[in-house]
């Protein structure tokens, strides 16, 4: 099988990038993803429901994330929620994007501050 090449997916849209990062440390439902993103970006990035699910839908179709059947303890669960997990493919894409961003950042620093 040919090795998966994440390049065609790059650069990621800010929303998708934040969603992939949000899922990097564990499965989450939609609302939790939004909260995670808001918390990490100090509210700079807010994913409202329609945008969030629109991006999730496309990420699912592209195989970057998958829906998981494992659900938390029923006491903590809301049956309307679906839980999403970062797929191997999604992790590779996220890693590639973070490397791309790091390289971009490095170049920008050299230009702006004269050091990396």
């Amino acid at each position, binding site marked *: 099988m040919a090795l998966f090449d994440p390049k065609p997916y790059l650069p990621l849209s800010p929303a998708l990038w934040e969603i992939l990062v949000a899922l990097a440390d564990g499965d989450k*439902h*939609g*609302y939790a993803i*939004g909260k995670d993103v808001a918390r990490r970006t100090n509210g700079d990035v*807010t994913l*409202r*429901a*329609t*945008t*969030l*699910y*629109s991006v*999730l*839908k496309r990420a699912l179709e592209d195989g970057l994330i998958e829906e998981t059947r494992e659900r938390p303890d029923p006491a903590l669960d*809301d049956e*309307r*929620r*679906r839980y999403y997990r970062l797929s191997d493919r999604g992790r590779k894409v996220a890693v590639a994007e973070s490397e791309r961003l790091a390289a971009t950042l490095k170049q920008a620093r050299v230009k702006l501050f004269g050091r990396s």
Partner: protein
Amino acid sequence: MSLNDRFFRALMKLLPAEFRADYGREMESQFRAEQREAAGVTGMMRLWVATLGDVIRTAPAEHLDILSRDLSYAIRMLARRPALALATAMTLALGIGANTAIFSVVNGVLLSPLPYPDADRLVTIQEDQSDDEPGTTGFYSFDALRSQQQSFDRLAALSGWSAVLRADPSTSFGAGGQDTERVNGVRVTWEYFRTLGVTPALGRDFEAGDDHPDHRRIVLLSDGLWRRRFNADPGVIGKPISINSATYTIAGVMPRSLNELVSGRLMPGSEIWTPLGYTTALPPSCRSCRHIQVIGRVRDGVTMEQAQADATRVYQSLAQQFPTDYASPAAVLTPIRDRFLGPARPVLLLLWAAVGLLLLMACANIANLLLIRASEREEEVAIRRALGVSPSRLLRQFLTESMVLAVMGGAVGTVLAVWATRLLVANGPDEIPRLQEVSVSGRVLLYAIVSSVVTGVIFGMAPARMLLSRAGGREAAAVLAHATRTTAGPAAWRHRAALVGINVALSTVLLIGSGLLIRSFVMLLKVDPGFDPHGVLTMEVELSGGQYAELPQIASFYDRLAASLAALPGVTAVGVSTNLPLTGSIDQWGITIEGRPHANPEEAPEADRYGVEADYFAAMQVPLLRGRLFTAADGPGAPPVVVIGKTTAERLWPDEDPIGRRITLAGGPNNPPRTIVGIVGDVRHNGLHLPVSYQAYMPQSQSPWPQSSMTMLIKVGDGQDPVSLAAAARERLRAIDPQQPIIRLRSYDGIISTLMATRRFTLVLLAAFAATALLLAIVGLYGALSYVVTQRQREIGVRVALGADRADIRRLVIVQGLRPVAIGIAVGVVIAAAAGQLIATLLYGVTATDAMTYGVTLTAVALSATLACWLPARKAAMVEPAVTLRA
């Protein structure tokens, strides 16, 4: 559920249903959580603004996403069956192309705005005498109308004018290489263009002072004439120009956009306007001389009925003052749109309806093809339904496929329409006004797009619904289990049979319609015009110049010309006449029989009057029935004589011999009674389809009034083409007087052919549509039945194996196919009988329910349908049970 939640749910309706189905509940739950976090009214407002913006930003992209998926799926699906896709798209292209082309004509001729502001208030006003059709009026009446009416902003009168333009060194006229040119013109009262609401593009309009017998010699040129003969030189304004041997001044040029419908229809081809220059003191304005047309602009707030009553009131007061000049007159107002475009309306609407039916049939056929295709796709649908794809999603997908076909068909159809429109404009009859202005405009393109989309929905809906109801009505597993043996069930056949029935019905309607027109056309061709137009060249000459002011000079000119033409090789007879049958010319004179005076001379019956010279009756082959024809002795000084038509003799002298009786034609001074010396056969003057009129012939040399315009009739021997004499005839005219232009040179056969042009045009198009319709119906029937036979092979195999006779099998299939045909024919006959009145005005010699036409049509439909059934039936009868049952 809170109000906020309800609003949110309503807002989500902007998103595609699939998206809502997938994520709606999650989104609602998230929105509820966000509400809990939003503190206070400000927080709620902020949440709502953000949510609203989010939905509005995202929704279009989601819809586009689904559309692009549907499109690519549809294209993949169609690519799998390229022949089907191509057949469908081409059928549709023909339907939409024909429709759009006819619509472009309907649009350009009937729907486009008239070239005048507030055109709805423009009317023609016709004088309606109790004994006649509404028509022209006299200048006296017009003058009274103009001064006494209270319902019109303006009124204007027009009269025909023939202008012979001669080269003048002071203008650029003549640059076109031709020294003398005769153009059709119109003499108008000064308010004519003001009534229409148009102003000259260059120079000035006529003014009140121009409209006077002593200083009326100014002209306005059409844009076309100005470009053609004056090189579009703006310097011509104010320059002199020689017209009919008098000097006129060019006052202005009318705008290019003005395609003058009123002048153009009343005086075809008119290109130049001059003031009428009448006063009631002039001889042409005798009360009973009715030779002018009147137009008016109805005042704002006045209804047509009020304006008509007002004009009628004026006429009736005139009749009271001058009882011998009017016969209980009334005014007839007709909006110019109805007057000039109305006559073309039935033909165009008929053709439009016909192509509309054709497009419906194309839809039915395509739907049938797609139904067959749908049966093959039952398995696919079942699988997708089992995978949870919603019915609305599937419906959308099927409709997208139909749309792709419709758009392909529409695109090719539009290209066809552009081409067909040009063909229609080039070959359409002159009788259809504004045909030359017809083009594929924005509105026409919109029509093509809308008809493509609508047809796409129509033919896509039936198969899509059938598929969904079948696949939805059963458990998917059951469908899958039987997928290999389903289809061709009774329900599927019912759908297809209904479509076959519709097609047969529509094609029956079209065939009956065109059959009736063909019969009418043949009947018209069989009508004896009373003269023989074959081998006759007509040459219209109009004398101008001071040397032709009096009757003797005019008569001498035409005598010399006739003698010169008679000497041409191959010519058997030459006649001259003021008036010709079937050319649309009108010259009616009242007949008063000596000893039978009318209380009111206006009530005298009117006869078509022909002032003839030379061998008129021989050239036209009008037979002498009794008495004698004119001889050289019937000249200006001899006793006045007249020859009448057969019907005139029979009706006016039912019990006696008219020969030797005396009649007065028109009356007035210098117009003595004439002795009837002969009776000739009737001719059809006004139209082959119209009844014979009263007819009276007199030697033109004995006419009370000179007429400068006459037509030479040159009859050639059998087998010779009269048009081949045109150049020689022109030469002979030039040899006598090179200054006199020929107005028109054409064969009489050509005149008759033009007369039939509208009928021929309608007939050819309708017959072509009807033939296409029958083809569509037959192909549809064949396709549907063939498919059934293929699907029922197994069952047929079983029947054969069980001992069924092959003839029985054949009969079974044919009966199955012919049942919807029979129903279709019956429905078609009912529709045709009901719609027959629509074409009643186009029929001649046949009724709208002509039994022979119906009989032939129905036999043709039934025979072709049987043939279409027989081929699949033969295939069914050849089924080998051993082969099919093993398969």
